[in-house]
């Protein structure tokens, strides 16, 4: 593990606005890095999911199935915050492979059981089936990795993460 923390580090974000949130995809040899930033941990995880969604599919705005998107519950437990991020993204990668493009996530809870204890996450993901027309697959994402994973909280309280996914 090269960098890991749930507390502020030297490489913490220094955004002027702690309310900022977003994500960006960066190239990495045969893979891609998802970079995300957000004011809270739950919104950070939603932004990372949005990065994964962008990487794995192209979805036209009018692509809404008649009976609405599929809703999937996601519950994850992990030893630490890095593992929580990897497990969260891996859950979503599997759901995309099985059900379709990710159109949204709502992270209800991402917290520790107790100080020093395991982390848990509860969320809902919405997906629409691939049809090759309005909902198209993009990259075949194999897995999120720990390779140079960094999750950090800055002095302003804002969060950021970098996660390389194997494509």
């Amino acid at each position: 593990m090269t960098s890991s923390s749930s507390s502020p580090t030297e490489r913490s974000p220094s955004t002027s606005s702690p309310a900022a949130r977003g994500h960006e995809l960066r190239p990495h040899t045969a893979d891609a890095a998802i970079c995300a930033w957000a004011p809270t941990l739950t919104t950070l995880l939603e932004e990372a999911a949005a990065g994964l969604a962008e990487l794995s599919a192209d979805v036209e705005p009018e692509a809404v199935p008649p009976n609405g998107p599929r809703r999937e519950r996601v519950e994850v437990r992990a030893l630490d915050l890095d593992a929580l991020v990897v497990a969260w993204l891996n859950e979503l990668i599997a759901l995309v492979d099985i059900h379709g493009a990710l159109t949204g996530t709502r992270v209800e809870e991402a917290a520790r059981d107790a100080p020093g204890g395991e982390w848990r996450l509860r969320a809902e993901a919405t997906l629409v089936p691939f049809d090759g027309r309005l909902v198209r697959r993009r990259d075949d994402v194999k897995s999120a990795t720990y390779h140079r994973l960094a999750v950090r909280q800055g002095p302003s309280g804002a969060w950021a993460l970098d996660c390389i996914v194997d494509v």
Partner: protein
Amino acid sequence: MAKGTRRARDARAATGPRPARGPRPAAPVTLERLDAYRWRIPADARRGMRVDGLVFADDRLMASLRDDPALEQVANVATLPGIVGASLAMPDIHHGYGFPVGGVAATLVDGGVVSPGGIGFDINCGVRLLRSDVDEPEVRARLDALADALFDAVPSGVGARTGRRLSGPDMERVLRDGARWASDTGRAWDSDLRLTEDGGRLAGADPSAVSPRARQRGADQLGTLGSGNHFLEVQVVERVVDPVAAEAFGLAPGRVTVMIHCGSRGLGHQVCTDHLATMDRVVARHGIELPDRQLACAPLGTPEADAYLGAMAAAANFAWANRQLIADATREAFARVLGRPATRLGLHQVYDLSHNIAKLETHVVDGREVRVCVHRKGATRAFPAGRPELPDAYRTVGQPVLVPGDMGRASWVAVGAPGSLERSFGSACHGAGRLLSRHAALRQLKGVDVAGQLRREGILVRAERRDLLAEEASIAYKDVEAVMDTAVGAGLVRAVARLRPLAVIKG
């Protein structure tokens, strides 16, 4: 997530620069030249290294490797408990995650570990080669129709599906029996299994260690190529440099061949993900310190290691069944287009090998025979003549080593040489190795019609995503000739025949 993405972009525009810094660069590692084809990373170059790193590269290859984080990964792998010999990098090494792609590590069965990252997410990604009695002009005359037929017959692309779901009992048999399942259902020739590594069925498969989710991901993906660097290629034997081995492999100049490169699809990815997560939880309990969490591992003989090896073997069997179904579909497509049965076309299998797998093998270390777990991630087994694992047909020749190049230049068939047992635990390169990132290749070829360019060179391409062909263009890869020069120069393999592409089916 079109809406969410737009929101995110709007938020960034409104609030200034992005705070995240991106992954940090790697520190350079110490390298000592040993000879024209070998470089040593001394065991004291990094804290925790138990053995040296050994990189197979000539000057040309090393020039592109010097600043590559892959070298740091070679050093990291050298910290694994029980690793013996050296942490090895094949000539086509490039940056991976945890292990480099092109990495080989042998760990003692007695006292060593198994690390799923040393096999990779695409368990038993590998290459199958079919040869034929058909000459190039006959195929050239029907090449458009043949490319269309193959593209229709073999689902390709991201998330490719067959439209058929394996039943529960069939999935169980695929995981247990691999290519034998395809044979039992009439989709293999007798010689296919004999000429597949491990007979297309790796011993020790434990389907119960494959999660329901992994099965769900794989259920409708059997018989599909997938995307990325996976391909099906119609080729012609351009040149034979070892006539004896070429004759044994059934290869003759001017004859058409078919190369298939793919793996275990979503099922294998999920198996790796599941077991990495399990091992990540027990690393500390076993008192193992790692420089990179992606190297998560468990001591051989523990329940975690046994479960992974059982699931890995099952996923490997899925991959062998996958390539078997693709070979069957290929034979049907050839027969349909060329108007005579595949048996009369002589579409026999040369070999099928894995380049992402762990095997329990016997090797000589420090003058004594030991049982080791050889991790090959982006590396091909390259056994020379005489090894008992080889099929009878190749026992006196050596194992075919299939080295795909890129879709614009060439691929090679080689044969395992004695030096591989002395220097690389019987391993060699698995391809040309990536040179440019996918992004860099797309950027450099922006506006270039890659398929059109290849067509002008006489190579037809059929692809699900033509806009992404640039990611796999020749400039994205090292020159396979340089990789082969090093593999041959280092004594790992002997070159047998050069194959030139005629038509490429891509995801």
